[in-house]
């Protein structure tokens, strides 16, 4: 143990706590400001001097958002698209990960490299051909367009994440099924899937988050208000009611709730997904 003597040591501890407080202000103040502004009236948001706590606490901004069917539709669209993509991604990625983790085959190394490198393909590069394809197949402004294009950038991560998880499971388990004469398909569903739930949860959480945050494809591949997702909805709100900051903040709070809840409930899985691919 280090010796804790002298005033100098105490001074360092105090300085550290001051720095921690400064860090907290930097990290959390913008979010606190969003939250507190969502409970203020529009005039109070720009009051001078600024009020740290809402002086006249009001839920009018939330009422305006939740009472407007157009805005509720944004939320429905976001949940629906993110949910559908998550289910599809996890299923498809699970199969691929099983192939990667339990079999040796020709081309495995190069396929793995291709999947790792697809993570870094710029979305803007894919956007123009997607636009061309989506228009020519007549699926412009539909859920199908969003779901198909989202799969492209959720799959690579999901495959890497699931493969990493399956590699941690002992092989004896599924080999036992093979000895009993079962096929690899049986082994997958009877043995692997039930014990892979943590990996499946982490993959689902991360996939959902990627879809919930997506902006560029949703902006370009949909057009009608009824097909827009939450991020686009916030942008539209900004254009239409540029001065209704309390509504924009309320919508932002509501739009952040799913991720905050997932983070609080499943912090471990959340972090596993967020750092996947970057830390081995």
């Amino acid at each position: 143990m280090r010796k804790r003597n002298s005033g100098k040591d105490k001074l360092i501890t105090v300085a550290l706590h001051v720095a921690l407080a400064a860090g907290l202000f930097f990290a959390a103040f913008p979010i606190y400001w969003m939250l507190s502004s969502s409970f203020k009236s529009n005039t109070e948001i720009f009051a001078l001097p600024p009020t740290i706590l809402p002086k006249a606490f009001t839920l009018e901004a939330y009422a305006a958002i939740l009472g407007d069917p157009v805005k509720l539709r944004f939320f429905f669209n976001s949940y629906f698209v993110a949910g559908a993509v998550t289910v599809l991604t996890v299923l498809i990625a699970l199969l691929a990960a099983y192939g990667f983790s339990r079999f040796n085959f020709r081309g495995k190394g190069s396929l793995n490299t291709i999947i790792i490198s697809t993570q870094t393909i710029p979305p803007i590069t894919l956007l123009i051909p997607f636009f061309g394809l989506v228009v020519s197949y007549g699926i412009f402004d539909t859920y199908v367009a969003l779901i198909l294009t989202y799969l492209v950038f959720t799959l690579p991560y999901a495959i890497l994440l699931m493969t990493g998880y399956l590699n941690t499971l002992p092989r004896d388990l599924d080999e036992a099924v093979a000895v009993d004469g079962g096929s690899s398909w049986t082994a997958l569903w009877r043995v692997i899937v039930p014990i892979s739930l943590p990996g499946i949860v982490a993959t689902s959480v991360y996939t959902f988050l990627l879809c919930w945050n997506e902006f560029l494809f949703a902006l370009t591949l949909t057009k009608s208000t009824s097909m827009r997702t939450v991020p686009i909805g916030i942008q539209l709100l900004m254009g239409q009611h540029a001065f209704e900051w309390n509504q924009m903040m309320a919508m932002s709070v509501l739009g952040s709730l799913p991720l905050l809840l997932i983070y609080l409930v499943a912090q471990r899985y959340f972090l596993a997904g967020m750092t996947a691919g970057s830390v081995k």
Partner: protein
Amino acid sequence: MTRQKRSHHKLKRAVAPYLYLSPSLLIIGLLMLLPMVTVIAYSFQNSAVLRRDPSFAGLKHYQAIFDDPVFWASLWHTLYFTCMSVIFHMTIGMIFALMLNSDRINPTLRNILRVLYILPWLFTAVIIAVIWRLLLEPNGVVNSILMQIGIIGSKVEWFSSPQTALHAVTFANIWAGYPLFMVSLLAGLQGIPKDFYEAADIDGAKAYQKLIFITIPQLMPIIISISLLDFIWTMQVFPLIWITTGGGPIYATEVLSTYTYKLAFSSYNLSQASASAVVILLISLGLTLFYIRYQKAR
């Protein structure tokens, strides 16, 4: 097992992995590799997408882009935005990770702060953009605090003045992105064997010497790989800039992604936009090759 049965089993083992991978390969092939080929093809066509039988354009669209001063300005802004973001993400992430890892703070406080320091990561780019627009409004809270302390004399229009806009979006992005470094470095710090520090203590090493000779070298692989990934991803940032400044005022915050987007969907010059998209792709691929080579060497 009979020989026939065994060879049948062998065949199944050989085919199975391809079957399991086929849905993924189909999607990646059709929706990723094919579009990449398509965008390259578009960049050599006149009126790509818009006409059914586009004529061959040669390198005309690349020439047009390289002759466009806005392209070079966008490239420079992208470089500034990305380099500053990565440097500060790394610095802030490192400072926060070291502070949280210190044995001078109480474990409960540590856990609470760890959650709060991650906060910026939990917000969508669009929401981050809206929050910073509110904070940096000319009549907003940042101006009012800065004027109170006397750092600025009059209201600054952070996002709409050409002098400050690029710095303001970069600052917002720095705030949004440091937690990736923090979380990864914190995990890395916890993996450094304690005996390294004990041995250094016996030799009478000072705190900064331990940082320079033990901590940083041990974290180097994480620092390098996250920096590369962060660089590639930050280069592609679109929504944050699109919502805060839209690339403006004039072209003050135009980056490669907004430049390309506007070419494609404001000017409907999809051929030239494709050429620009291919340039971005090539830069990303170059960095990706570097990243993969680094990961393999590890």
